């Protein structure tokens, strides 16, 4: 054997990619506990604020919503958040625009900027698309879900929901706040941007994340997402350890070739009344939606007393107000970034 000298591949970028606008949020990797706290505090502040005062916050500021995938919850939530602060919003969706004619994301972004957009909220079927948009426009870009990559505003609204349940004040949030808290995320982890954002964010605040699901939907290497993330194939035993359980739907549109026995899936991984009562009678049950009732969760659980599903939606509005205000503020709300 020839001795091989250790020479790390020079994976560092020789030519630095342009910096994103500091008001952007593409990945929760950009979030430190401090910045997370600042966003949550701002959300609290805006929620408590007198309606008329809040309505002057983004008066006549222009926000574009660029949606390449259909979305009810996220789009409406961002739109209402912007309107509650009197921003002007423009919705550009794949079916009603020159996107259809093959215009590139870069050109669409440049066009929106030329039309006066000051911030773009992007939903794309392609992982990483918000980086491209942010780099080619220089505008703050809020990632409203990109492919299988991330959905950071969802992770923040989930966090707000959890903190309320646990009785932790936003102002107290730091890297140890969620110590001792175990969150199970169960279902189609592989295709889920919500799972990635949550699994990357929660351990930064001290939580333990247990991922649960069958191997085709949850490859072993999911634990490499970071410290604090582990896998438990047995749903019952992961429920037993958890204060919070987040159910995900199976993304049939992304399954591409995977064969899955759905009956078996239901019997092993469905959140139903019996299972929750037996193994997690006090846990908070969450779901980012859309729900497929009778598949990953039964109506009994989704509509039951432990369910936070509707609450999650309302926290979404608060979080997105904060993200928009931060994106459109002259200075980032919290000066420190990772």
């Amino acid at each position, binding site marked *: 054997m020839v001795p091989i*000298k250790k020479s790390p591949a020079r994976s560092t970028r020789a030519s630095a990619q342009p910096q994103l606008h500091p008001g952007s949020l593409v990945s929760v990797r950009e979030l430190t506990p401090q910045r997370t706290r600042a966003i949550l505090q701002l959300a609290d502040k805006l929620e408590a604020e007198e309606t008329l005062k809040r309505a002057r916050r983004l008066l006549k500021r222009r926000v574009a919503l660029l949606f390449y995938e259909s979305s009810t919850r996220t789009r409406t939530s961002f739109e209402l958040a912007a309107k509650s602060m009197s921003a002007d919003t423009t919705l550009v969706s794949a079916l009603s625009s020159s996107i259809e004619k093959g215009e590139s994301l870069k050109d669409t972004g440049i066009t929106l900027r030329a039309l006066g957009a000051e911030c773009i909220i992007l939903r794309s079927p392609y*992982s990483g698309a918000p980086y*491209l948009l942010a780099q080619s426009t220089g505008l703050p870009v809020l990632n409203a879900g990109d492919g299988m990559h991330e959905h950071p505003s969802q992770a923040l609204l989930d966090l707000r929901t959890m903190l309320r349940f646990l009785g932790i004040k936003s102002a107290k949030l730091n890297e140890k706040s969620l110590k001792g808290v175990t969150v199970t995320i169960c279902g189609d982890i592989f295709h889920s941007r919500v799972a990635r954002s949550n699994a990357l964010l929660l351990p930064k605040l001290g939580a333990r994340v247990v991922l649960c699901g069958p191997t085709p939907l949850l490859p072993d*290497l999911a634990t490499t997402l970071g410290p604090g993330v582990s896998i438990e194939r047995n749903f019952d035993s992961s429920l037993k350890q958890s204060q919070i359980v987040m159910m995900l739907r199976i993304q049939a549109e992304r399954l591409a070739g995977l064969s899955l026995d759905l009956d078996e899936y239901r019997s092993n991984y469905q959140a139903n009344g019996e299972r929750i009562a037996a193994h997690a009678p006090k846990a908070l049950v969450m779901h980012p939606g859309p729900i497929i009732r009778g598949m990953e969760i039964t109506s009994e659980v989704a509509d039951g007393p432990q369910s936070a599903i509707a609450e999650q939606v309302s926290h979404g509005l608060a979080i997105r107000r904060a993200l928009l205000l931060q994106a459109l503020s002259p200075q980032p709300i919290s000066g420190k970034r990772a």
Partner: protein
Amino acid sequence: MKPILIRGGHLIDPATGIDAPHDILLEDGKVAAIDKPGKIKRKDAEILDASGLVVAPGLVDIHVHLREPGQGYKETIASGTAAAAAGGFTSVCCMPNTIPVNDSPEITRWMLAPERNAVIRVFPISAATVGSMGEKLTNYPALKKSGAVGVSDDGKPILGDEIMFECLKAATRYRLPVIQHTEDTRLTAGCSMNAGPVAFRLGLRGMTVESESSLAERDIALVRKVKGAHLHVAHLSSKKALDAVNAARNEGLHVTCEVAPHHFVLNEERIGDYDTNAKMNPPLRAESDRAAMIEGILQGRVDCIATDHAPHACHEKEQEFERAPNGITGLETALGLTISVLHKQHGMPLPSLLAMLTHRPAQVLSLTGRGTLAVGSHADVVLFDPNEKWTFRAKDSRSKSKNTPFDGYPMLGRVHTTISEGRIVFQR
């Protein structure tokens, strides 16, 4: 054409084992004489002072995409060969995935026509099947006669066992190597990078190393059945496939392979936040595979280095990662990267390293008289300073395209002069 006398240089010709100060005389497009410093006298010759420089055979790259016919906005044969000359190359073999696909003697001859203005020698590799569709073999004897040096459906690997078997048999009959891009594309649909933790975090579907090694193994199994067949595995990127190739070699089969500089210099982490200039196929692999490529090269288990130079226009790379085309340019960075990583970091002697870029690739595709400075061979020469540190700038590239992950990258070893068949085609 005036004779050229290169004096004062350190001559390295791996094919003949010369590694010493020598002068060299080029005349009528051939190497006319090699001798001790000061021995060769020619009054009518143009003198090149090579002091402080290595004088080596012009480099040979058996895997490039020159994009003509059909995609002249990415590269032309003229611009691609100019980039090659700037990188010290004097022979390049171009892949047939042009538009239309180079599956006919007419297109092969069109590529070789003087009107293409190639500044160095181009050797077309023709499609192994019509339109590279993997169904019907092209006309091997006619293609060979028109100048093809091998057959390949690069980028569209031949998956069918039957057609691959037929291809190997026919190619063997006409003494053509079969060059396979070993990727079982049935396993890589929708994938845009290497499978592993980075792909998982980025939410990108990943290509496993098994998708590469399994097709290599299938091909090797077929080579076993065709006496005298020569299989060349293009841009090999994984330890698994490298082991398969070497096991075949140990069995006595004629199986060779090439590795591209990016696969021994970079790993998958280089993709960072979806940098499309780090997207190619095969993809940048895990660090362990990168290390295995270096180890394989140092141990002589890799036949040669080839760039897989794959130019794409800026607007094509400025797309979402999954939509951007595969490939990076490589002709102008190959030597600087190879010297800096294999020689400087890993202590590979210059002659062994140059062998991987000269006579060994020439041997793989039987390019006679190329990749060596033996008297009588083609006067293809490169003069470079092995100690010069420099920084590659994509904007200065002679290629029409700038899609490289090595923009601003430190290089060691810089080309000063490139001579193709006795003509100076690049000088800095």
